[in-house]
């Protein structure tokens, strides 16, 4: 698929320190790409270079086949900054009119409906809850129907229910054809939403791929949890090509590098012992585990 955003060899020094070192990123139309990394990894700096808010020392940012002009966010791009707000006295409806006017678009009241803000249209920004403010910022970021929207930590500090609402809204945005670049600390969020992930550590790209590809890499193994009627299953872990992590409350937990072979061997083993399966769970390594592994490698 032809990328709409292509970032190559991005380098940026700040205060004599390399904040970005040869960073690359590709985003195709309608794709959600998560940019992951701990605090200070360079996520915000990379995004600001992509948005045109900062000028990289080296590297190339092409959006819709054109280079990004420094100091100007392209018209086809929507942005929600990490630390940005609106004037406290501005109402929701005024904010929509204001942003639409500067983006050269007609204000669309249906957007407020879509983001469950219609009833709050006359409420001032300072009177909105944090979750409502984030919903408004997201609505404003896409008010001019951009082809790409860049969201920097859009769910930071939100409660579980509000985060879930916002996730649903992000899926809606993607379904409408808008690509999303999402910078986040939340690995579960990235795993849930992203088509592709880029992990930044110390200003460099340490891993890139789909969440499934990323979790398949590394040394972390698949966790197989099993319980049987007689509880006689931990006979010979080597037989099922797995190591025993623990046995507790009638459950045995194995770690395997080849989950399919291990599960087959485990089922054969249970049948041979004339036992019966009560519960079986196979859990792939999470993105968070893979991320922590990379972070530890980087620190080492």
């Amino acid at each position, binding site marked *: 698929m032809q990328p709409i955003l292509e970032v190559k060899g991005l380098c940026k020094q700040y205060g004599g320190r390399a904040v970005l070192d040869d960073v690359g990123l590709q985003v195709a139309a309608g794709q959600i790409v998560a940019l992951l990394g701990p605090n200070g990894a360079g996520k915000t700096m990379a995004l600001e270079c992509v948005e045109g808010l900062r000028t990289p020392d080296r590297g190339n940012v092409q959006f819709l086949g054109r280079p990004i002009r420094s100091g100007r966010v392209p018209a086809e791009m929507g942005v929600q*900054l990490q630390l940005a707000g609106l004037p*406290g006295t501005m109402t929701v409806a*005024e904010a929509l009119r204001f942003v639409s*006017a*500067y983006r050269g678009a007609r204000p669309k009241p249906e957007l407020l409906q879509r983001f469950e803000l219609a009833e709050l249209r006359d409420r001032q920004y300072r009177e909105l809850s944090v979750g409502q403010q984030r919903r408004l910022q997201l609505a404003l970021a896409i008010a001019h129907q951009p082809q790409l929207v860049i969201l920097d930590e859009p769910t930071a500090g939100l409660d579980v229910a509000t985060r879930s609402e916002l996730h649903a809204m992000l899926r809606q945005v993607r379904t409408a054809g808008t690509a999303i670049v999402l910078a986040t600390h939340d690995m579960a969020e990235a795993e849930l939403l992203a088509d592709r992930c880029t992990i930044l550590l110390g200003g460099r790209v340490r891993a890139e791929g789909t969440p499934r590809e990323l979790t398949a890499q590394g040394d972390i193994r698949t966790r197989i949890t099993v319980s049987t009627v007689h509880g006689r299953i931990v006979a010979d872990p080597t037989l099922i090509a797995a190591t025993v992590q623990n046995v507790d409350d009638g459950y045995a937990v194995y770690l395997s590098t080849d989950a399919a072979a291990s599960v087959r061997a485990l089922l054969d083993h249970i049948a041979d012992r004339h036992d019966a399966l009560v519960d079986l769970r196979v859990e792939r390594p999470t993105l968070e585990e893979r991320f922590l592994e990379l972070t530890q490698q980087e620190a080492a």
Partner: protein
Amino acid sequence: MRAFAEYMRCEWQAALRHPSSLLLSYLFPIGFFFVVGGIMPQLNPAFRGFMVPTFAVFALLAGGVLGLPTPHVEQRAAGVLRAFRVVGVPDSHVIAVPALSAVLHILFAATVISVLAVLIYRGDAPVHWLRYAAVLALAAFAFTGLGSLIGVVSASSRATTLWSQLIFLPSTLVGGLMIPLSALPPGVRPASALLPSTHIMQLFDVIAYGRPALIDPWWSALSLLACGAIAFALSAALYSTEQRDLTGRRGLWVLAAFVPFAATALFATSA
């Protein structure tokens, strides 16, 4: 144009909704007018002769120099100005729109107060109301320029208060508002000539009331015009620089807006 008008509409309403803007643009000058207007003519009957421009200049000073900078600093701290940049608001609008909105608010407040001062406290009415309005407009331009510059150069609300009070307090004490320039001790007059309020009061005397003045009115008018122009030009330039991350110690730039008054004090004061 639609975007500029929309921003202007938001700013106009923000000044009425924001408690500190409302206080400094309307409530503080009107409260000062009622309290001081009731007391001063009894203590000094000659005060009626210059009370109308005094209260008007006080309103312009409060709204322009005290009221205008704070929202800029607050919006910068809250990330509003960054959000504006992302949306495509030009740097020139960020400087021009709040200043223009403030000019309209403070001119409205100053006009109402001027009329009330004549009607309620029997202050001397200007001989030429149109010329009076022209000086008001010139004063509003200079004060909002200074307010804008203070907002841009101040790193925090504390710095804003410091710079604003550094202009506001001397202006009310020795800037011709409470005591005319001619009544000030000769040793204080050169310092008074460094303040915009002194030149505004001198202009009111000559142009709107047909009275003699101690400072050449052309120099006063040019100083005020140059002060406003320098302040707005510096505001725009420093704001753009700030957006490119080239911030540094910039507070002293405020003094550049006072250079025209220093020149006038040196070359055109007969006092």
